[in-house]
């Protein structure tokens, strides 16, 4: 009994008991699983990955053919997940910056719009928003023959959204040259980049390719499927509200004296914001922003609800086709854990570095 009162002995016993319990649960689950699998005659193993998938993937960034293997189907799904994550994060950051600044605006109309937007978006589940946009894009839009044209060259139809496009090669060249100019000419960074970008396009005589109605659908230009359009719109509008709140919080965290000092120096408010407040707010903004980006990547799995073929949908299809549920779910969980944990580690390293820099 006296031994039990010793904190170190008791601690040791508790830990041994916990370890035993964890091991016991794992063994118990393993035992159940093997019994269930043999009872139901379910095949396990990874050899299905080499077999041809034989199911279609409606759209993908990476090339895909139903004759490709299951492994490649997973890679294609992951590619789509990363692609929509990147686009969603980019779009939400730009829109969110606008919304965060709007919420802090001196203009009551703009401030009201900003806060109202955040309130509505944050109190509605993302999946309801996605389904709403998808319903709008498929049921409310007209057939291609009667397409709506809100802007010249932009067509909204049940079959998707069609946009005018620049030829890919010339666009890539212009972007590369513009970026190079922006990096080299530090003084006029933004202006130089845009000027070189535009000049390249004009000099190479890039012509805008307009979508045209041919038969039952449009050809030419950029075509966005209803699934992709609804997913992007929904996820960007939703995430932007959260990004906006984070940016607004960051601006609020900068001491008032900084604004007053800027004013005392005769800087206009907008210059104070851009040159003094935002750079300091960034330090406060980055940690919550990273976790927001991570949850955006996780949120892309909701694409399942509108039928955009990202990793979650591919996994779901494979389970229905092969019954290899354990392996498929392990892949899904493994991929997301890898993404989350690597970003977390990166963030911890970054925070530790920032902590040294901060006095």
């Amino acid at each position, binding site marked *: 009994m006296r031994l039990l009162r010793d904190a170190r002995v008791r601690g040791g016993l508790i*830990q041994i008991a*916990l370890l035993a319990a964890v091991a016991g649960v794992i063994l118990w689950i393993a035992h159940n699983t093997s*019994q*269930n699998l043999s009872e139901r005659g379910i095949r396990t193993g990874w050899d299905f990955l080499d077999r041809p998938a034989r199911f279609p993937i409606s759209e993908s960034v990476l090339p895909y053919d139903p004759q490709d293997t299951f492994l490649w189907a997973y890679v294609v799904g992951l590619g789509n997940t990363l692609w929509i994550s990147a686009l969603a994060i980019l779009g939400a950051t730009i829109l969110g910056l606008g919304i965060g600044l709007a919420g802090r605006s001196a203009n009551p109309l703009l401030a009201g719009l900003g806060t109202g937007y955040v309130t509505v978006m944050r109190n509605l*589940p993302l999946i309801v928003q996605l*389904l709403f946009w998808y319903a709008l894009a498929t049921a409310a839009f007209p057939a291609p023959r009667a397409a709506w044209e809100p802007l010249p060259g932009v067509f909204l139809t049940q079959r998707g959204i069609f946009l005018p496009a620049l030829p890919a090669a010339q666009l890539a060249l212009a972007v590369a040259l513009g970026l190079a100019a922006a990096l080299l000419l530090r003084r006029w960074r933004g202006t130089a980049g845009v000027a070189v970008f535009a000049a390249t396009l004009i000099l190479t005589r890039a012509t805008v390719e307009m979508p045209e109605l041919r038969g039952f659908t449009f050809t030419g230009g950029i075509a966005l499927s209803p699934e992709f359009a609804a997913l992007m719109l929904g996820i960007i509008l939703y995430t932007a509200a959260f990004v906006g709140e984070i940016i607004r919080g960051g601006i609020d965290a900068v001491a008032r004296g900084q604004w007053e000092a800027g004013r005392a120096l005769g800087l206009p408010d907008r210059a104070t914001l851009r040159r003094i407040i935002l750079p300091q707010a960034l330090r406060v903004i980055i940690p919550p922003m990273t976790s927001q980006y991570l949850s955006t990547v*996780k949120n892309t799995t909701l694409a399942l609800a509108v039928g955009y073929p990202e990793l979650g949908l591919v996994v779901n299809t494979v389970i229905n086709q092969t019954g290899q549920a354990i392996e498929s*779910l392990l892949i899904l969980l493994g991929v997301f854990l890898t993404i*989350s944990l690597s970003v977390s580690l990166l963030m911890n390293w970054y925070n530790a570095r920032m902590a040294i820099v901060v006095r």
Partner: protein
Amino acid sequence: MDYIAARPAPAKSPAPILRILFGDAVAALITVGVIGLIVLMLPVLEWAVFDAVWHGDAAACRAGGACWAYIHDKARLILFGIYPPDQQWRPVIVIGLILAMVMASLSPRFWNARLALLWGGAILVMLVLMKGGVFGMADVPTAKWGGLPVTLLLAVLSLGMGFPLAVLLALGRQSKLPVVKAVSVCVIELVRGLPLIGLLFVAAILLPLLLPSDWTIDKLGRTVAALTVFAAAYLAEVLRGGLQGLGKGQAEAAQALGISYWKMIWHIVLPQAIQKVIPPLTNTAIVMVKNTSLVMIVGVFDMLGAGRAAAGDPAWPAPFTETYLFVAAVYFAICFGISIYARWLERGVKRKSHA
């Protein structure tokens, strides 16, 4: 010696509204832009209000505007799913009970051990009311539960069962014992690193394979399990913030007085730690209410699932847009209501502590 009493700073006269709106070129541009945006939204208003069909049947709805007549017709189906209509007074009581309990729990006046017991009792009453089979109430299998009571029950059950788990995980993460700490960190980070859909898939597809074959847990139960684990991990991180914000002196003072570990946690550490994190806890609760909508993907009949089923009725012209707007309005009322109420309570607490 005479002192001159301190005077309050002179009141700043607010800038005239016209100057705020049209002071310089950029301000004017912003104002015009916002007004333009509002004008662009007018067709939506036309669709939703002026052209809308408020009464009548499916035939009247083919005209173009929003078909609110359909919502009028299907509201019961969306709110209660396929629960037997003559028994629907039972889910109505359950909803009322949940709202009353949530209102009471958010108020610090009721915080004590009895509240936890009360929650246990209330949840039991809710489940009995929904399931029936006793006291002369007809038996309703969980497969027939649906709509708003399922949404609210999922949220309440996952938060209610997740909270004690979260306390253990948060304490484990702060523990000095390395194994306890490692296990807690692993569980928390594992769950937080996964999308909720992944967890729901595991619960719906994998769990029957992992448990003994003679255990039959229905789909609703498995979904609740997944949501509970999810809620616990996120609540644990919120609680960790409260525990870290608590001065070390509190625990040390308790130890100096010879108070045992669990008594110290229960009477000294937890009450103060929780008090510190009420706003983020409320936030997590709202997030969980929103997250319950994902169960639709694994085929549980919550409000969103019931709405989709209702909109699929071929008699009506596929009014999915209206359905989602209606469902969204209900979610908004719940989530926004909770946050307004919590903020109001918080102001009350602050006023009292300053007085």
